[in-house]
């Protein structure tokens, strides 16, 4: 068994490494520097960072209270809600984006939002909506697990010491859950940075307008600019590695 197990592990690690090497192998310092100084790449990096930050923020604002509701309260239909939350994770992002596109473009509510609040379809705002949709389940999943691991008696004791429910949540449960929520937020952020399918459908792939890093890779490959696509891929690889390191770091925090 030991031999089979390690053989399987080695096999998969080799695949991962070959992907990493395929990207890094073709990169020279020169192409990387060219890419980093190109206006298009700078725009894509900046847009990706900004949109992922805002989308993660919204994901936290919505996801943390949702997770709390699922962790602390018992109500009818909880199982159904729970499955619905998984849908954005399981559904192909392209289909999620397609759904969002029809919702904002073709329905009454969607049109109302477009006319009175904000234009979502084929705009940078659409990027945030697409990323939010895909990333929020990650926040809910991780935060829920953290809340469930915290004995609700801490909150009750805090309330018996004079805190209101909301105050006991803010002063006791939330700080106790901080680490887990932060790890969830990093995961969600990484998901936002890599979001492609839903963004493509909802925000479109307009050069220098809705061009996030993954869209930039797509656009450059489609016009045959492999060198630039590889350089952007390399940037994303670095971001992915930094994400893994930061999650490990957060987990090691006391």
């Amino acid at each position, binding site marked *: 068994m030991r031999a089979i197990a390690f053989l399987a592990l080695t096999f998969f690690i080799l695949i991962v490494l070959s992907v990493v090497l395929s990207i890094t192998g073709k990169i020279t310092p020169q192409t990387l520097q060219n890419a980093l100084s190109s206006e298009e790449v700078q725009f894509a990096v900046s847009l990706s960072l900004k949109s992922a930050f805002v989308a993660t923020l919204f994901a936290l604002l919505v996801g943390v209270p949702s997770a709390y509701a699922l962790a602390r309260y018992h109500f009818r239909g909880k199982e159904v809600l729970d499955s619905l939350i998984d849908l954005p994770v399981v559904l192909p992002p392209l289909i999620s984006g397609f759904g969002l596109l029809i919702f904002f473009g073709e329905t009454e509510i969607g049109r109302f939002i477009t006319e009175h609040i904000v234009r979502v379809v084929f705009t940078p705002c659409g990027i945030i909506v697409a990323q939010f949709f895909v990333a929020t389940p990650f926040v809910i999943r991780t935060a829920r697990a953290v809340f469930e691991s915290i004995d609700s008696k*801490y909150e*009750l*004791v805090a*309330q*018996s*010491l004079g*805190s209101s*429910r909301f105050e006991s949540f803010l002063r*006791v449960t939330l700080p106790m859950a901080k680490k887990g929520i932060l790890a969830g937020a990093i995961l969600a952020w990484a998901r936002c940075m890599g979001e492609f399918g839903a963004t493509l459908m909802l925000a479109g792939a307009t050069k220098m307008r809705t061009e996030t890093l993954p869209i930039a890779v797509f656009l450059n490959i489609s016009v045959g600019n492999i060198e630039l696509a590889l350089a952007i891929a390399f940037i994303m690889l670095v971001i992915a590695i930094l994400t893994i390191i930061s999650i490990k770091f957060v987990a090691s925090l006391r």
Partner: protein
Amino acid sequence: MLTIENLRKKLEQLTLEIDRLDIEDGEYFVFLGLSGAGKTTLLEIIAGFRKPDFGRIILDGMDITDKPINERKIVMCHGRYLFPHLSVEENIGYGIKDKRKQKERVKEVAKMLGIEHLLKRKPETLSMGEQQRVALARALAIEPKVILLDEPLNSLDRLTHENLLLELKRIHESTGTTFIHVTHDFIEAISLANRIAVLKDGKIEQCGSVEDILRNPRNVFVAKFVGVKNLLMGKIVEENGYYVFEGGIRIILNGNYEFGNVVLGIRPEDILIISSSNCRFRDENVFVARVLDVYPLTLSTVRVLLDVSGTKLVAETIKSKAVRMGLRRGSEVQICVMSAIPIRQA
């Protein structure tokens, strides 16, 4: 005064049922019961952590059954639930509303409990005894009307147990706050309580002063729980104007009792062991007994197992006395039953 009225709460294993219970201001009240008797649930209902199915909790004339937890002025004190992300100082100060007086008040209660040196520490670095002290300080800091203690002395080592017990007694006396304490340890209960309620399967078997419960346990369960080790089955009959218990041995009783079947309870400390040579006692309730075993109970006391013509009795005596008398397995002694409690079967 805290009043529990017509309380019903259905739990998985049992139903909590209390028709009426009044706990006086400043009282040290102990709920005594085995695990699973509903003690913790009862405490949580008083705190507002759980809602009763039925009934009312009244504090100083006000119905607080549906009041939010934070408006009750009743604090749950629990060493296991110190907030782990806060220092001891921040934990104690947690409930103090007036932030300007916070530091001062924290110092004050920390001093009262002898934990000033722990203020900068995190709860996880404290021993269990220290955690309980911090929890108590945190509760006292907000000057509540009632402090609830859920097995506060549980799983502490002997010495810490004793120290904290004395501390609880001292703090209760000096603050005058109402303490409601649940425990399964009857020694703890009698050392601390003004009054005790013995709980079994969610119902109060007996409620009364410590002396009352010790001297007049209402049934066999309570008797066993409060340390009545000898329970003899028999009946009470009249003999020459005396009430006499008959059942294995014959014991003349003081006072008036109903005739008929009864369980006679004898506390181990109420069996006096008399050395056989030195018999100055009148022969009422004096028996010849054979020692079956002697073993230490505490540092200063021993337990003696006795056989009185086939009836087994458990006695306790001072260790030095047992040594002086040379008590050991097989010794023949005289014993005197000083006091006995007839208990009606429930």
